[in-house]
């Protein structure tokens, strides 16, 4: 036999073939021949490796080196470096997401490390089109044992003791099924292999057939011995041409070797296998339909009893099992029931193959022991969710399964536990969903699949799936009513109970499980006309407008800018936002995170375009003369964004709002927290002027608790009160000596600075925290002339830092040192003055049940930093002490005031609250949205109306004709970056860092907009052509 020093195993599963692995193989062979290494190195095509995300894959044995994502151009270098010079090529190796070091060996890679290969033991290792390779790895030894050393009863007993359960989905005990079939009366019996695999997202059976078809043939032959069958059928779906090809080759070779057909191994036992092809029906995966299809009849399920083991194919006893079940059999016979039953849980023995697909980093096929937790599969093996998005649900079991939410991630995977939570094992498909997946849309998708695939016999399934789809469709279009949910649930239960076969009986699962765990999403669609994942087109119109808490019509002003109509752009923004100057500088732009252009490209710089419109569109705008208020008096406590907006909209409704501000200047966090290099004070001043001119009175130096109380206000004739006092009490670190001189809470630091009050700040400043107030404090301190160094101490990693990415980037640009995975443990003082801080290094520990790694301190890694000032910025809370000792409000454990979520009213009638005081530290735009909502609620209250709100789907208020572009023009449109001050120019001053877009860049950026709003018809077809 030829001996090679190295084998190159080229993955030739369907995924890698589609990515070009046949080309890779040819190129490898060519290059190896060129370097005259073809007598020492063999190149073999193997079946699927399972790590389909990283194809084309080549594994070098015996080194065990794993190469991935190979391109034809890489091969010459690879051959020369690794195979000739013995230097493995690092840049072609696997690097885990969010890390930097490559992992050379396959056995060290998380994806492979945690798997336990039984059924897939030969994958990526043998050439499936060569029976000798299967035999070399103990192939057909089990058959020999079964034929020569065991009786049929022995075989059945072994399978029973092993605890093997059907891997097709229902999990019926295999040994028991074989026994029932064996006991059935009749001399003609059949064994059948179900390779229909209809579940969308499932490809494990395909993988087994493509990588190791002999395992199935051997298993079926052993089954035939046990049951007493002479003929077998493998029903393969027509959509698997490669599997069909490999099966045909395997059957032919097995026949040639006397391992199949007449007189197997000379023992006189006859058994032939034929292959039958499917014709594109999901329902034909159901056993009675499948048998009907093999017989040439239409694939429609039949009532059982009689079961196939009694009356199956052509009314003879038939044992039908799934591909994976059959592939387990040779191993069990060879290595024994005891070995098999040691893996898995009490009720579910052995391993299971799962196809890990959807929003997951390591898409592919994994085989794991039963009882492993979902969390381990998704994070350790799957590598977590791409782009750091939040996990939302995992759908198991295909369209017959259910969705499992985040809180159940610790669930061990076995037949019973999955059923208990409303899902099922099914074929083993695992579809991972993240925050951008709409669960209502998911239910609709599966219902669409099921109504298409229903055979149509049972009224319940045929009509039921159709009607459930209709209701879900209605809901995703924003036309759902609360009654729809009740009907949907009732109908789902009826379909489940009344249908005859598994398709109908499980058709309700996607609906029932999403209703159980994600009801809030349904309610968001029906009541609030919102799609939280921003998916359902008819509800969202354009994702940017839908996501904006104040419904800003971004596509419209962007379209106006693209057409050069800057004035109109300005007016459209102003219509919904009196604080437009402020937002154009500091809004955290949730719109950009959902921008469609950002999916697979660069999101539109929506905020920068807003700023452009504010600066260039506000030409001859005349500030309105100051209005005279006429209506009822309303008191607003707090002149931050929430209070200002509430005041504006109350004034618009002709009420008389008065704002009481505790500090000497108005603006709240906008004036006291956000530094001038982010929000120039002239911009803020202009916006506040606009609000005051609209009829809002602002009284500064009026602090709640010190200068007035809530009761005072009511006594003075204010008919309603809006509390918007924010959350600016910094939380303590809870470390020793925190009260020393030189330790300042970040909110106090920023407020004092912006009020012009004197503060003692030393040369070296450390800021503890990772949020925006930490970075604001750090960048402000860095600009002070007395400060020479600023260090931020954050206990987690860069990827987890909550501060806006642009802020963190700017801080690093300006020379601020950020120590990640670092926590302070003690403040060091001398004469009660800060002189240093002791810190400990952290490392990320195991994944907890929410999918995050908790940081844990590394022992003996403490070190000291010499500092003069320490700023606490880990988080803030509202300061509710100003409400008085006897206040009647309900306050949460985080010191936030509790309010009704729709009307923002507290438990005291006439008193409302919004902004950070109800949310904890949050964002400017959300505070503004609260203010707007509160104004509406207060107006209703003052008019004695019931506090009932109507909601509508998102639509633009005006139709702006899109800009016409030539193809060459669209190709030239690339993302435009704003101009920024260079770090040197920012030293010791508070000049605005972001300089915005110029006219040319703004128009190019605006033209990149995909105009998602044009895809959806306006509600009332009223169009204003511009």
């Amino acid at each position, binding site marked *: 036999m030829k001996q090679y020093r190295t084998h190159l195993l080229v993955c030739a599963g369907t995924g890698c073939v589609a990515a070009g692995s046949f080309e890779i193989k040819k190129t490898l062979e060519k290059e190896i021949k060129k370097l005259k290494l073809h007598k020492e190195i063999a190149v073999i095509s193997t079946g699927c490796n399972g790590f389909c995300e990283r194809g084309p894959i080549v594994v070098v044995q015996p080194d065990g080196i794993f190469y991935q994502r190979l391109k034809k151009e890489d091969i010459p270098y690879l051959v020369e470096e690794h195979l000739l010079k013995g230097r493995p090529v690092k840049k072609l190796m696997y690097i885990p997401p969010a890390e930097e070091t490559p992992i050379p060996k396959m056995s060290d890679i998380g994806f492979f490390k945690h798997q336990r290969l039984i059924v897939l033991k030969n994958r990526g290792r043998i050439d499936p089109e060569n029976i000798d390779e299967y035999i070399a790895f103990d192939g057909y030894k089990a058959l020999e044992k079964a034929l020569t050393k065991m009786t049929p009863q022995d075989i059945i007993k072994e399978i029973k003791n092993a605890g093997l359960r059907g891997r097709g989905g229902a999990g019926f005990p295999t040994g028991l099924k074989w026994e029932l079939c064996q006991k059935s009366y009749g001399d003609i019996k059949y064994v059948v292999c179900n390779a229909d695999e209809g579940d969308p997202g499932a490809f494990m059976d395909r993988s087994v057939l493509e990588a190791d078809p002999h395992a199935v043939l051997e298993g079926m032959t052993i089954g035939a011995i046990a049951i007493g069958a002479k003929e077998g059928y493998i029903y393969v779906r027509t959509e698997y041409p490669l599997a069909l090809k490999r099966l045909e080759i395997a059957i032919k070779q097995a026949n040639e070797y006397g391992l199949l057909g007449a007189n197997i191994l000379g023992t006189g036992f006859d058994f032939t296998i034929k292959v039958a092809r499917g014709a594109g029906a999901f329902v034909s995966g159901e056993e009675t339909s499948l048998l009907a299809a093999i017989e040439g009849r239409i694939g*429609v399920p039949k*009532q059982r009893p009689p079961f196939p083991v009694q009356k199956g194919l052509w009314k003879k006893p038939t044992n039908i099992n799934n591909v994976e079940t059959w592939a387990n059999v040779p191993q069990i016979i060879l290595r024994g029931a005891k070995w098999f039953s040691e893996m898995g849980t009490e009720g579910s023995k052995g391993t299971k193959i799962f196809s890990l697909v959807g929003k997951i980093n390591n898409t592919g096929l994994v085989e794991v022991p039963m009882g492993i937790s979902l969390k381990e599969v998704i994070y350790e093996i799957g590598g977590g969710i791409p782009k750091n998005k939040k996990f939302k649900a995992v759908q198991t079991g295909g369209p017959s399964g259910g969705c499992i939410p985040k809180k159940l991630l610790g669930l061990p995977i076995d037949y019973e536990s999955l059923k208990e939570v409303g899902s099922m094992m099914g074929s083993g498909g695992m579809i991972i969903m993240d925050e951008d997946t709409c669960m209502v849309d998911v239910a609709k998708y599966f219902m669409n699949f099921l109504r298409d*695939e*229903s055979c149509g016999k049972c*009224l319940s399934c045929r*009509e039921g799936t*159709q*009607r459930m789809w209709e209701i879900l469709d209605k809901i995703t279009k924003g036309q759902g009513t609360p009654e729809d949910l009740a009907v949907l649930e009732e109908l789902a239960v*009826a379909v489940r109970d009344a249908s005859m076969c598994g398709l109908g009986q499980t058709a309700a699962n996607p609906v029932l499980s999403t209703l159980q765990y994600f009801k809030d999403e349904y309610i968001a669609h029906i009541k609030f006309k919102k799609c939280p994942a921003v998916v359902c087109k008819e509800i969202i119109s354009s994702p940017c407008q839908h996501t904006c808490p104040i419904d800003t019509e971004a596509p419209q002003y962007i379209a106006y800018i693209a057409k050069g109509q800057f004035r109109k752009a300005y007016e459209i923004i102003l219509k919904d936002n009196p604080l437009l100057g402020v937002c154009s500088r500091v809004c955290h732009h949730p719109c950009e995170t959902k921008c469609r252009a950002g999916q697979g490209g660069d999101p539109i710089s929506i905020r920068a375009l807003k700023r452009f419109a504010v600066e260039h569109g506000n030409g001859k705008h005349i500030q309105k003369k100051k209005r005279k208020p006429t209506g009822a008096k309303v008191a607003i406590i707090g002149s931050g964004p929430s209070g200002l907006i509430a005041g504006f909209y109350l004034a618009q409704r002709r009420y008389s709002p008065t704002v009481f501000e505790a500090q000497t200047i108005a603006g709240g966090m906008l004036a006291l927290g956000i530094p001038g290099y982010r929000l120039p004070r002239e911009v803020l001043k202009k916006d506040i002027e606009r609000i005051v001119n609209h009829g809002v009175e602002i009284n500064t130096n009026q602090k709640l608790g010190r200068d007035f109380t809530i009761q005072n206000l009511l006594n003075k004739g204010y008919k309603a009160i809006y509390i918007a006092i924010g959350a600016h009490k910094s939380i303590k670190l809870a470390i020793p000596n925190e009260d020393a001189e030189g330790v300042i809470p970040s909110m106090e630091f920023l407020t004092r600075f912006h009020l012009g009050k004197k503060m003692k700040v030393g040369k070296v400043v450390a800021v503890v925290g990772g949020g925006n107030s930490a970075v604001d404090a750090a960048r402000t301190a860095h600009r002070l002339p007395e400060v020479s160094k600023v260090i931020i101490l954050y206990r987690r990693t860069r990827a987890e830092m909550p501060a806006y990415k642009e802020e963190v980037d700017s801080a690093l640009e300006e020379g601020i040192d950020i120590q990640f995975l670092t926590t302070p443990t003690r403040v060091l003082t001398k004469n009660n003055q800060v002189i240093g801080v002791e810190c400990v290094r952290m490392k990320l520990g195991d994944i907890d049940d929410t999918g995050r790694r908790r940081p844990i301190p590394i022992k003996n890694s403490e070190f000291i930093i010499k500092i003069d000032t320490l700023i606490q910025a880990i988080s803030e809370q509202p300061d509710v002490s100003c409400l008085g000792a006897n206040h009647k409000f309900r306050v949460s454990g985080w010191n936030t005031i509790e309010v009704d979520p729709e009307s923002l009213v507290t438990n005291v009638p006439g008193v409302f609250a919004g902004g950070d005081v109800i949310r904890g530290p949050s964002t400017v735009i959300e505070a503004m949205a609260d203010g707007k909502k509160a104004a509406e609620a207060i107006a209703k209250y003052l008019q004695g109306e019931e506090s009932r709100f109507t909601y509508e789907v998102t639509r633009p208020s005006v139709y702006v004709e899109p800009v016409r572009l030539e193809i060459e023009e669209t190709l030239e449109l690339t993302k435009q970056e704003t101009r920024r001050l260079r770090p040197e120019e920012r030293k010791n001053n508070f000049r605005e860092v972001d300089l915005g877009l110029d006219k040319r860049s703004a128009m190019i950026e605006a033209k990149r907009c995909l105009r998602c709003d044009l895809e959806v018809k306006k509600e009332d077809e009223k169009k204003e052509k511009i």
Partner: protein
Amino acid sequence: MISFKLNGLEVQIQEGTTILEACRFYGIEIPTLCYNEGLSPYGGCRLCLVEIGTGDKAKLVSSCTYPVEEGLVVRTNTKRVISARKMMIELLLSICPSSKTIQDLASKYHVTKVRFRVKHEDCVLCGLCVRMCKEQMQSGAIGFVERGYKKKIMTPFNIKSDVCRLCGGCIYICPACQLRCQGPDAQTDICNACLSLEPSCINTHEDYQCWMATTGDCGTCEGRPDQVKKKDNR
């Protein structure tokens, strides 16, 4: 003889009997639509559901197709059965509200609302016509085509059949073809009339009119002058 438990009673029946036949034998009423004594059972309408088994393993099966087994526990009117039955009737109404058979079922089982979009089709895919043509008339001119919500009954490739003898058996047996007294284009989706003892003909006549001589007042036999007696000749 097989012994089994029927609504709490220990009873016996011959082997090979279906649960539905056994219930009929013992006088227990079970609604059906796609069942006909003279044709093979189909199990498509899901009205004849009964609950078998106990505890966790209890499930609903169509009694017309399920053969009685030794020791089987059958209950015909459990909560699950009743709510499933009512939903089936509601679904039938939403497909074909012009059928008297279906309206009677609704009246009898107190289904008072249809919460789905009404389709106004003229076929509920019960398959009686297919079985009538094949089994009784020995012809087999029509059959089921396509699957799921696209399923239809027609001749192969929708061309004129050369085995159809125009016997009319399919029309005779069709439950959708038995129109309600308000005719095929009635204004309401549910009438809840005859079997609820509130038919409209009683407003103008002394007797129920569907089995008396037709007078044309209900509008069903409009256009058939030989069937209409003049009003004063009543």
